[in-house]
């Protein structure tokens, strides 16, 4: 019911035309320039932008996932880029969840529910459980080492995990290691992230001091940043920031040049879903791609043909390989943990609720009443509401970004605000 918040964002106003933008781009050393898109647009626009970058002589194309491709052996890149048909989930005899499908990827939930109906065993492993009881068994851990300890449970299973901008290389390497003998599906939170990766947006440029100019297509890099002030600082120091978006957002306020595109649902083109299937979008607008074409990119027709040719037969197949990245230690602590369950609102800077989930035991310990608020104290502190859930004591789960907590799992102190 928070969807209207997503669609009621304010359209972005352009302040330059294609000719001006191209002239400004020509003034920058291509090695100090980067083109970034999280993939919230069509393959055709992504390819057209890639051709613009090529025309300028720039090789830096990032989708926000570049850091993983630098750090993880090439043998695993295919599984990072693209998944497998969801039918595999429905027909699996064993599923291991490292995410909460109901919160993070709701459209995935039905496949897991159908697998359960067919008799699949569903196991969830993580720092917090799932209050909808999708799993037959929940293995709660307090460190990544403990996930390594559960390796046997992953054997011959379909493993589903979230790969997002906050995932660390160490977390990813843990997942890749424990799922050596299983089918691994890495879900990404942006609608065409798979397409962006398949079209080679795999550089690692975010926060890189060498970069002086950035062209951002349909993305807000502040919304996805772990440390928002740091990202804002980096963006504001650039010599040139071009933001080509449908809606206004925090990044557009920092932009030197803003270019307007149509909302995704009006765009004509294709995307690649997490399965690796190419899907046609429902819209008919090619306005965005025409603008990129005027700057030196590719037109819709040619771009569409190239997309179909390039993406044909690309499917994720997991390769065997060794990873020597050790899991990052979370310092042992008896204290409380705040666990983020990221979701589409989280990645778009929309605060769709104002409470976090906490254990009934903690609610009783603190003597809280329904209307009370709590203070979550980490690097800073924040006051929010709470919802009592049946979860272990001292596990707090948040679907909203709390600026005080800058990691997917943080040690926190929680007190009553009264």
């Amino acid at each position, binding site marked *: 019911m928070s969807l209207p918040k997503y669609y009621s964002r304010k359209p972005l106003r352009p302040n330059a035309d294609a000719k001006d933008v191209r002239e400004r781009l020509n003034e920058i050393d291509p090695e100090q320039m980067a083109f970034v898109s999280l993939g919230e647009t069509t393959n055709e626009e992504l390819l057209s932008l890639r051709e613009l970058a090529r025309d300028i002589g720039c090789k830096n194309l990032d989708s926000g996932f570049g850091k993983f491709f630098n750090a993880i052996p090439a043998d695993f890149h295919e599984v990072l880029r693209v998944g497998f048909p969801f039918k595999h989930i429905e027909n699996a005899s064993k599923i291991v969840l490292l995410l909460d499908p109901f919160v993070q990827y709701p459209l995935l939930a039905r496949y897991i529910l*159908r697998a359960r109906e067919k008799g699949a065993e569903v196991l969830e492993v993580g720092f917090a459980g799932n209050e909808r009881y999708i799993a037959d068994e929940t293995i709660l851990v307090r460190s990544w080492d403990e996930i390594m300890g559960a390796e046997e449970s992953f054997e011959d299973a379909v493993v589903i995990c979230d790969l997002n901008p906050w995932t660390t290389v160490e977390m990813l390497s843990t997942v890749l290691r424990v799922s050596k003998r299983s089918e691994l599906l890495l879900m990404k939170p942006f609608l065409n992230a798979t397409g962006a990766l398949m079209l080679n947006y795999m550089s690692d440029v975010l926060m890189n001091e060498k970069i002086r100019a950035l062209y951002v297509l349909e993305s807000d890099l502040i919304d996805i940043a772990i440390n928002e002030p740091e990202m804002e600082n980096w963006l504001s120091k650039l010599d040139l920031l071009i933001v080509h978006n449908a809606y206004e957002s925090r990044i557009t306020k920092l932009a030197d040049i803003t270019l307007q595109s149509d909302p995704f649902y009006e765009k004509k083109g294709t995307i690649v879903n997490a399965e690796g299937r190419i899907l046609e979008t429902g819209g008919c607008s090619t306005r965005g791609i025409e603008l990129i074409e005027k700057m030196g990119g590719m037109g819709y027709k040619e771009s569409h043909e190239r997309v179909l040719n390039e993406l044909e037969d690309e499917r994720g197949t997991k390769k065997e390989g060794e990873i020597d990245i050790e899991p990052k230690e979370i310092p042992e602590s008896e204290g409380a943990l705040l666990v983020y369950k990221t979701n589409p609102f989280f990645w778009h800077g929309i605060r769709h609720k104002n409470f976090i989930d906490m254990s009934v035991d903690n609610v009783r310990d603190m003597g809280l009443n329904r209307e009370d608020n709590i203070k979550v104290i980490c690097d800073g502190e924040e006051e929010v509401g709470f919802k009592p*859930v049946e979860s272990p004591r001292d596990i707090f789960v948040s679907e909203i970004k709390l600026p005080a907590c800058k990691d997917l799992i943080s040690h926190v102190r929680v007190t009553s605000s009264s």
Partner: protein
Amino acid sequence: MENECYLAWATDDEMRGRGSSGGFVTAALVAAMRSDLIDETLVVKKRDVDIYDGYPFVTRDPEEIIECSGSLHFVPLNLAKFVPHDKRVGVVAKPCDCRGIIEQAKRGQIDLEKVYMIGLNCGGAIHPTEGREMLRAYGIDPDRVVSEEISRGNLILRMAEKGEAIELDELEEIGYGRRDACKACNINIPTMADLAVGNWGVPKGEEATFVEILTEKGEEIFENAVDTGYVEYKRASEKALERRRKVDEAMKKMAENWRAHFDKLVTETEAKDRLHFYIDIFKNCIHCGACKEVCPACACGDDAKCIQLNDEKDVYKISMYNLTRILHLMDSCVGCGECEDVCPVDIPLTLIHKRFTDRMRQKLGYIPGVDLRKPPLYEVPKSDT
């Protein structure tokens, strides 16, 4: 002419060839538009040539109506919320579309005087993804099917090279076939529309549409199509009427069997455990609101009670959102199944809402969407409250 039945067909070869059963619907709409009887037409349009994908489409161009000819049983959309306001509009509507339009009219969202409903006899629709899977199971390449129809209990497919008919009973016995909402639907002839049209009752080999005129507006559409030379017709014979009645009865019988089957899924749960049955069904709801968004009976906006009373911080076993919707829909659900189609976690909403509307029908004889009667709970005189 009201309540008269005819066999009618388009005089134009192209319309007759492209439309179903002699192209009457296409011809009548084109005639109505060219004669300025209606301003716009609402139809479902195929996405490119894909018979498994379509979208609601409003047009003022008669040529586009011709392009949209033919049936689309793999595209289960309800059109009620897409009816343009303040225009005289022709709508090609299934019975559940018509019922949705009437429910919207009761809630002040549509001016029925301006809506010309050409109601299609309906044997049900098939979910596109499941339809593709079903055809593959039958050794048919779904992408080779160029057109389809449901007739006389059969799903009839036309491929480029040949045709094939599969019995619905057979499909449904092995778990394929129509959506659950369609299986349980016993309103197959849209008697609440202005015209009820279809191929039921048409003699084998004859390319014509069986047309029943139900209202003055229906008469207006029919007479206009004839007067302008777009349509020719003959009176339906007693035999044709009888054939149509028999098909309707057969479809109703199939529906009654399915209704009993669905009802059993609930009644087999002992009364004392029934609350848990519902709690279990709703526990996966993620409150995305998609069911409300597509519901043809719902006319509320963001200030709807189901939203206003719901607080995600609450820990009720069934949320106020779902409880309020159950109460709201027990006197307005038209059984179209759109809510179940869009539910991301497969909650069997058709089953649940049918369970409650059936009770309303049994106790108070009230069926939503078939006429302009107010829901019984609004009909209680003040003196009785």
